[in-house]
């Protein structure tokens, strides 16, 4: 399916659940029988500070596990967006959370703008599932892993008490992508 590797960076601040989102995506890629690496970078804080997760999906051996030239960038904060935007490929997909990203220095051809955090608070009652909501949106837009693989991975990756909430967030994310622009 894939000739080259597909590089995704999920970025924002500590506590937004981006590393968990990266693990869920990586596990979904394994379920779809791809090779995958997932790396992360974060500060010493458990909340606040910067945080990012890189996922590289390929059908060949993946050498360098750090994404340097992304096919897709998810930015949940202004700081993350400003920092990583210029490493997005020209043809790459940019997904931003307009709850926090107010200025876009450069409009990519494929830019998707939605207030993910606001939507999560409104529709799911808390910003806690913003990570899964935006990840599901990303999966639907990029088609990088199958929707069913994402669901299986999600069920394996979160604590049992949070499965229902996250499945709800995932379905909402898929719907948002389906109806985007309408």
């Amino acid at each position, binding site marked *: 399916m894939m000739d080259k590797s597909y590089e995704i960076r999920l970025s924002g601040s500590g506590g937004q659940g981006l590393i968990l989102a990266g693990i869920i995506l990586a596990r979904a890629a394994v379920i779809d029988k791809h090779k995958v690496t997932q790396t*992360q*970078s974060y500060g*010493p804080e458990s909340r606040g500070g910067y945080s990012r997760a890189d996922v590289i999906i390929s059908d060949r051996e993946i050498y360098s*596990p750090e994404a340097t030239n992304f096919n897709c960038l998810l930015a949940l904060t202004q700081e993350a967006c400003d920092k990583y935007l210029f490493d997005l490929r020209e043809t790459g997909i940019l997904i931003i959370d307009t709850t926090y990203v107010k200025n876009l220095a450069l409009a990519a051809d494929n830019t998707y703008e939605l207030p993910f955090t606001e939507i999560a608070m409104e529709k799911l009652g808390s910003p806690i599932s913003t990570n899964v909501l935006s990840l599901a949106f990303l999966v639907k837009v990029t088609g990088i892993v199958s929707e069913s693989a994402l669901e299986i991975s999600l069920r394996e990756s979160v604590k049992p008490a949070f499965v229902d909430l996250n499945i709800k967030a995932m379905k909402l994310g898929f719907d948002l992508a389906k109806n985007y622009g309408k």
Partner: protein
Amino acid sequence: MLKTKKSESTKAKTPKTEPKKENAKQESKIKELQTTRERKTVIMQGNEAVAYGALDAGVNFFAGYPITPSTEVAEILAAELPKRGGVFVQMEDEIASICAITGASLAGAKSLTATSGPGFSLMQEGIGFAKITETPCVVVNVQRLGPSTGMPTSPAQGDIMQAKWGSHGDSPSIVLYPDSVKEAYELTIRAVNLSEKYRTCVILLMDEVIGHMRESVRLPDMANVRVINRIKPTVPPHWYKHYDENQKYLSPLASYGEGYRFHVTGLTHDAHGFPTNKSSEGGEMMDRLRKKISYNIRDLVQIESHQMDDAKIAIFTAGITARAAKAAIAMARYEGIKVGLLRPLTIWPFPDDAVRKMLRNVDTVIVPELNQGQLIHEIRRLTKDKSDGDVIAIQRVNGQLITPNDILRKIKEAC
């Protein structure tokens, strides 16, 4: 100190109240855990691979003081060791941790600890003690950046020389260095095996990125995992020598409580382990520590040669930086540049002969590393015939990785 730790550990291991039936039940449960664990392709973290490698190698004692970026090793072993009849102890600090694993090993356990730079520095004295007393144990050091507490979550390769020379007194070291999650699993098993075989403290150096990285891996089935156990003495107890000079430097090892009489001290000792100040015996002991490594260098050295057959430029590096090098090589080869990679899986003892042989055919050597110049000195030592310009350094110490593009740029400059 060791004695106290030892008595604690044995107490925890075999509580007096536990009847035999329970033991048998536990044993069958352990067996079940080992054989039925699914070996399908999974997503696994480097530190997780170290923990499962330790379990598969038969490690049944862990004492440590959890520290970023190695914490997951302790977390997983805390959950898994008790299920398998093993012992997990969270110690008060790293000095106690290394002493506890040394003591447990003398009591017959296979022991391991995991730490990062600050803890590794504290452990150096204990590592020397394990070496001079020829006690098998494994120390995993997941490196972070900088001296002291530095940058806990950032990658660096600054402990390469410390792993060799950190403990005082000029003794050889065995240090292994993986570049992937799968290899972290394999080299953990190898580290435990080598520690048992050579009766010494073996160090597994890891990069923060390898420790925290998740990759799709399929671990080998348990039937294909080779486990080495220490040689036990077969002589009558009164003939036993704790350091038997007639056994090709790999002498059998009795455990405390098995009826063999021996003495353990950090002082220079004779064959039975009793302190000696005689220059003849001291010299013999130092010789023994050196020779058991240098006489077995072929068994110890492992090296990966990647696209070196026709290479005119060689990249020499270890761990995560080798992954960037492979990506750079793929890009350079696409443009027709003949470049390859030499990667030591065993960094100490340094693979002198293998490296010398392979470097003979190249014009230039590039040495990228996440420090201010450590591996490059070994390469310069082996490439005396090359001018300074033929050995090129790429060094970075800001918490960022060396990228494939950084290396590609140097490859092009060298053409």
